[in-house]
């Protein structure tokens, strides 16, 4: 009885600490007042409207979206075969391949960004945007391999063998038998990759230029110069977007299961 109350109390405090700030930001962004403060003086959507109207945010939002979508798709295109190969074949250098493909998780993003800038973009005169796409793809690749890999592990190999014996080609067996069964894993990997890429900052720090900025980077420079509630509104919008995506993913995919 009192143990239960204690448990609730502890959780209330911890959850307040973890989620409270997010709620604060949302409230501050909806403020009708002039300055950034909590509790907000009145509620209004004016700062949200202001944020939505800023041109540079529109383009950086588009860039971030593009990176998230195409980067993740590319990561999946590269990663699913790797996951499949690791799970269904006895590969030489399997451990090395696994390490290489997982490396981006280990190395802090800012180092990747800097390295790409210094040894790719500048010397080879590669377009920064291209490097950005490559970086985001590399960033998401480990998730693609890992999450899809987990799904594949859960799927016994008998099914494909049965399909092949019934006349399907290897590719046909994959498309008809494997893909449908790992579908939710693939989708979960997509969502995870999307969110990761979209919220990513350090990798994109060095790989920006005139007109080439991801949304979080754009936000940070905006933050440094602006002190009104529009900043909070922006942060809140970004946060809400992530929450909405994950909520939908959980609802329709059982997202957490795969993560």
């Amino acid at each position, binding site marked *: 009885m009192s143990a239960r109350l204690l*448990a609730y109390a502890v959780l209330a405090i911890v959850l307040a600490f973890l989620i409270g700030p*997010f709620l604060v930001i949302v409230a501050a962004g909806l403020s009708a007042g002039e300055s950034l403060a909590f509790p907000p003086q009145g509620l209004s959507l004016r700062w949200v409207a202001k944020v939505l109207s800023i041109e540079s945010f529109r383009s950086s939002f588009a860039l971030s979206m593009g990176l998230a979508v195409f980067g993740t798709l590319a990561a999946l295109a590269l990663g699913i*075969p*790797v996951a499949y190969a690791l799970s269904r074949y006895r590969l030489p250098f399997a451990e090395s*391949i696994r390490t*290489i493909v997982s490396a981006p*998780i280990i190395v802090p993003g800012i180092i990747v960004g800097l390295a790409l800038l210094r040894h790719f973009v500048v010397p080879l005169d590669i377009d920064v945007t291209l490097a950005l796409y490559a970086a985001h793809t590399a960033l998401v*690749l480990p998730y693609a391999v890992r999450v899809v890999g987990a799904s594949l592990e859960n799927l016994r190999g008998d099914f494909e063998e049965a399909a092949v014996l019934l006349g399907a080609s290897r590719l046909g067996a994959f498309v008809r038998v494997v893909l449908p069964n790992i579908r939710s894993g693939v989708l979960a990997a997509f969502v995870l990759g999307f969110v990761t890429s979209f919220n990513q900052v350090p990798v994109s720090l060095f790989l920006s230029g005139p007109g080439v900025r991801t949304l979080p980077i754009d936000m940070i420079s905006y933050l440094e110069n602006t002190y009104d509630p529009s900043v909070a509104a922006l942060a809140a919008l970004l946060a809400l977007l*992530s929450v909405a995506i994950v909520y939908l993913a959980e609802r329709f995919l059982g997202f957490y299961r795969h993560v």
Partner: protein
Amino acid sequence: MFSSRSEGLALALPGALFAALVFLLPVGLLLAEGFRSESGWTIGAYVDFFESARNRTIFWRTLRLGALVTLAAAIIGYAAAFAIVSLGESARGRLVGLVILPLMISPVARTYAWIVILGRTGIVNRALEAIGLTDEPVRFLFTETAVFIGLLQLFLPLMILSLVSALENLPRDAIPAARVLGASWWQVFARVVLPLTREGLVIGGTLVFTGALTAFITPAILGGSKVLMLETLLYQRVTVANDFASASVIAMILIVMSFSANLLLRRLAAARRGARTGTIKARTLAAGTTR
């Protein structure tokens, strides 16, 4: 299991090559920079780096904050994990979901919220003034405390997740048995719970520690240039002074730390299957969503 190795390699190669090319190669080159000078290979850059008192301060500060955040996360993490596990199976899924949720929100948003809360006109200061504890606003921002709080909030969910998984694997009657044998609650924790959840603690601790060491956004926003950590120092050296040598040294330090931690985690995960789920889960969520 299919036996055609070449087929398997053909499938795996594009992804692996891509990662190697886009990722390993440039990073490797960057690290190599740290050892080059006009006269060939030296460790001069490293010596120079550590000779600077400022650099050393930042190095130790990064380690210190990392350790403090990990310690705080362990204490709070155990409390929260116990609470979650004691509240029954049905609530558990939802509670864990709530704990994980912050990980999905952009670190920029999460960190920025602290500015609103800890700023001069923020909630904390206004509360303190209202109670009468202070006359003027206390400076919380751009202090180690602010960075500490920001990092703790960022990484606590990982520790909680890891400990919940560990507590779930505790033998059901171990705690009542220890109680009946005469153990006080502290003795139950120290002699039974801690030894049996040690792995979960190490996993969570490693994730939190590495996360705190390699965080960028939080120290950048909450610490600014007053409280530099290794990563923000790197950014500053490159953008302000074009000092790529230092950047390379810092990069090496960070990679070594992160890599060792990862190795430790892999070893632990291989040792026991139960830990694997927790490790994969926590690790997947850790990187990328919290930098």
